[in-house]
């Protein structure tokens, strides 16, 4: 009986420490997740923007991916977050593209299509360039970037994914394969074909 009483007092001593420890671990995890998200959010946005060619959709897609990672996979080891996040992002991008295809098909059979085109026009304030000096070199870079974006948008989905994940996010072949849910050999093939296609379209513009 005495042994049980001692055990009870020891357990009650340990429990508050355990809770505090767990809370600390959770706070550390939140900080780590925040730093991870702040590191990837801009790159993810650019990947989504190039794929979708629409800023608001790209923002939605990135926010969805961040929420899903935080909600479902925050407890997973931090080294798994990057391929997981980009896999979620690519799935969201594909969802938006599919919805667009369906919407285009539906709209094509509606007699009053195009009436609200004015409502979907981009906000000129959003489209305005940032304040600040724009030298000629910057304009040239911007134009080259626009051409590169157009060429990337025209690539087949898998080639574009492989090229952007490797060059914007800097994922290695293994993580790119995990994000694209395919083999490393496929990643290399897609990447090589993407590079060849871009070179044939852009030639010396990007050198």
């Amino acid at each position, binding site marked *: 009986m005495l042994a049980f009483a001692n055990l009870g007092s020891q357990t009650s001593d340990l429990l508050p420490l355990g809770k505090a420890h767990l809370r600390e671990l959770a706070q550390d995890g939140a900080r780590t997740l925040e730093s991870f998200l702040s590191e990837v959010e801009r790159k993810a946005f650019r990947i989504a923007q190039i794929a979708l060619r629409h800023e608001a959709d790209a923002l939605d897609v990135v926010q969805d991916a961040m929420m899903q990672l935080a909600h479902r996979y925050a407890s997973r080891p931090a080294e798994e977050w990057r391929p997981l996040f980009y896999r979620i992002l690519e799935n969201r991008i594909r969802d938006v593209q599919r919805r667009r295809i369906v919407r285009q098909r539906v709209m094509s059979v509606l007699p009053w299509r195009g009436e609200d085109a004015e409502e979907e026009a981009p906000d000129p304030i959003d489209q305005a360039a940032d304040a600040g000096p724009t030298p000629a070199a910057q304009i040239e870079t911007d134009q080259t970037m626009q051409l590169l974006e157009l060429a990337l948008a025209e690539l087949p989905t898998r080639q574009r994914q492989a090229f952007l994940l490797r060059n914007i996010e800097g994922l290695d072949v293994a993580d790119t394969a995990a994000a694209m849910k395919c083999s490393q050999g496929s990643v290399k093939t897609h990447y090589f074909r993407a*590079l060849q296609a871009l070179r044939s379209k852009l030639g010396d513009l990007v050198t």
Partner: protein
Amino acid sequence: MKSATERRDDELDAAGKAFERRARELLMESVERLPAQTRSRLTRARHAALESRPSWLSGLVRRWVPAGAGAVAAATLAVLFLVTPHGEGPGVNPLANAAPEDLEMLADSDAVQLGRDADVDYDFYEWAVSEANGAGAPSVGT
């Protein structure tokens, strides 16, 4: 014999590598030069995502409550198994194989009443029977 990857690397000549490097620079520059408004929206999206994250307490509850419920259910089943008499089979009805006359006797209310009558003086009846059988029984009142 070179593998397909090695052949690809060979094909990626100097011009190809330069193209790759320049494309990477352009893409990274476009990431760095995102408008302030877009950066602000991304920050808000990040905070919303972090707020949607399950708290440590709910995570703890979500992890341990099902395990606790399972343990309680298992303990309940174990107790029920141990407490419930088993191995003796179902209860046996002692009258199941009784003969009809036995059942009739049991149902006879008089017999039951006789059996229950504690006031009967059986010694007296035995004496009376033996006296009646004997010849020299004195008559009452002599």
